């Protein structure tokens, strides 16, 4: 797991990522869980929330993204996938986690099949709890990051 997140790379570059200049590109990776938070992210991407107005875009490839947005408890099978995606992203880059599962596993803490959440394992720029959190709360949090 240490290889997934290069904390040293992230430190000190937060300002460059969130500081301005062009829209903030998010890449969403669901890593397990009930898909509830993923549905909320899908709702956020939908018409009810005008992301472009807030300077936020969801990218279709990790290579084009500034921020990795993770939802769901991290299953052991998804850990190497997440690792690969993180490595694919250009620096500087950051990680945000959405939902209780992505933070600490929520109802799906560590067991034979899951690692639980990312909290305490890697450096997280911003985390939003909830089960699932509202898309508006996700939006407000990300906008807060954009505005510094």
């Amino acid at each position, binding site marked *: 797991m240490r290889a997934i997140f290069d904390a040293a790379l992230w430190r000190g570059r937060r300002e460059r990522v969130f500081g301005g200049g062009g829209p903030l590109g998010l890449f*969403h*990776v*669901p890593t*397990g*869980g*009930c*898909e*509830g938070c*993923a*549905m909320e992210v*899908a*709702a956020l991407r*939908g*018409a*009810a929330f005008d992301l472009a107005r807030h300077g936020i875009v969801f990218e279709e490839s990790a290579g084009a993204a500034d921020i990795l947005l993770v939802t769901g*408890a991290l*299953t*052991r*099978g*998804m*850990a*190497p*996938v997440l690792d*690969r995606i993180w490595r694919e992203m250009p620096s500087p880059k950051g990680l945000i986690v959405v939902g209780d599962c992505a933070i600490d596993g*929520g*109802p*799906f803490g560590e*067991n*034979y*099949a*899951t690692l639980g959440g990312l909290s305490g394992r890697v450096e997280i720029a911003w985390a939003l709890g909830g*089960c*699932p959190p*509202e*898309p508006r709360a996700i939006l407000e949090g990300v906008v807060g990051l954009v505005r510094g």
Partner: protein
Amino acid sequence: MQAGQIIRLGERVGPSRFLLDEEGWRALVECASVLPLLGMWCDGVEVHALFLEAERPLIASTVPMGGRYLSLSPSYEAAVVHERMIQDLWGAEAMSARDVSPLLDIGFWREISPLGVRPLASDGVGQAVGEPALPYLLDVERGRGGRVHLHGGYAHRGILQRVRGRTPEQALRQIGRVTSGGFVAHSLAFCRAVERALGLGISPRVEHARVVLLEVERVSVHLHDVACVARCVGADLLAVHAEQGREELAEMCVAFGVTRRVTDMVVPGGMRGDPDVVGLAREVSGWLEPVLARLGGLSVQAEAGLHRLGRLGVERASALAVGGVTGRASGRGFDARRLSPGYDLGVLAPRGVLGGDCWARLSLRLREMENAAVLLEGFSEVFDVAPLEAGGGVGEGVGFAEGARGDVWYWVRLREGVIEAAWGRDPAVALWAVLPEMVRGLDEAGCATVLASVGMSMAGMEF
């Protein structure tokens, strides 16, 4: 002899459950007549198979000898996915099985046979065949000659292990989060199984609240699935209205004392809180009419991109017990709501959308939301059922609910107030066998459209 007769020749060991000896199980495997097979599981001691007989549950059980039992898969294709899961989770091997390859355990787990009597430690250093496509966590491998192979194992959370030894109330923390396509449906099916096991009777008021929330969830999930399909084929205006509608529905739920996505509302024996379900039913039924009129008008945007895409025939849907919109759009009419009291069966009747393709599924979702509006209008007045019969109260029970994506089933066995063994079935599991033929020859975009149109949930499939 019919399969149901063979099962009933076994020793009755639970409500609708019969224990077959080796000879009886073999007779079931070799029987020319077959019943729809919904699922199979193990409890560490016995292997169980849940069938539908005249649309009622019937369970056959057998004791593996030396960790092995005779595979049902030569007669039941639907058994393949379950036998592979049983092998991964409990270590029981199906002899003469069509497929013995791992399905859930792709090498990353820290235990081998984690639900078995004696799990073994594993280093968990796996090597997946491919990599899952996002957001489905499903790897669709296109092989030679157009053959398609599915690889999973990325979404499994070990929920059946997590709920063992917990009280039903504690277990709802996990069961209520099996899949977002069935927050209500999974909780309700599980609670019904628990209530049967405990012999808990349910008041008509509670049943009323539950069916209202089940219909509200149906509308919410259908709107989500319609939007996803519409986005896949560039029908953006249709998607916009479906997405906005789903958010409006969430706000309505909150206004009437229900959580936004109808989470955590059902508990064994009752409901959590005191939501105004009558008011919610009235509000949603009135709100739906203009919303559906708009969606219906806009749906033609998507028609050309969905026609003849991802077709599933009635024979395959029936053979694999594919339920929900996907089954009904293919002509398999099963709807578990018909087994529940209080529904207007005329409203539930299929209405001629039988093409079996992505367009049929989208059209049927719109029809089902129309039906939900009618049902909710009825539920906003009276709920005319007698107090529901208490279950057997013998410590084990089966429960079901017709969720937005199909029939959800649970079996539980309780001992001294806690769960000794449990099993659940999400409708996604029936799609595993038919998806390869549905996406055969399609590119990634076509494949994604089909997955969206069946509402594929690997969280439900693998939980």
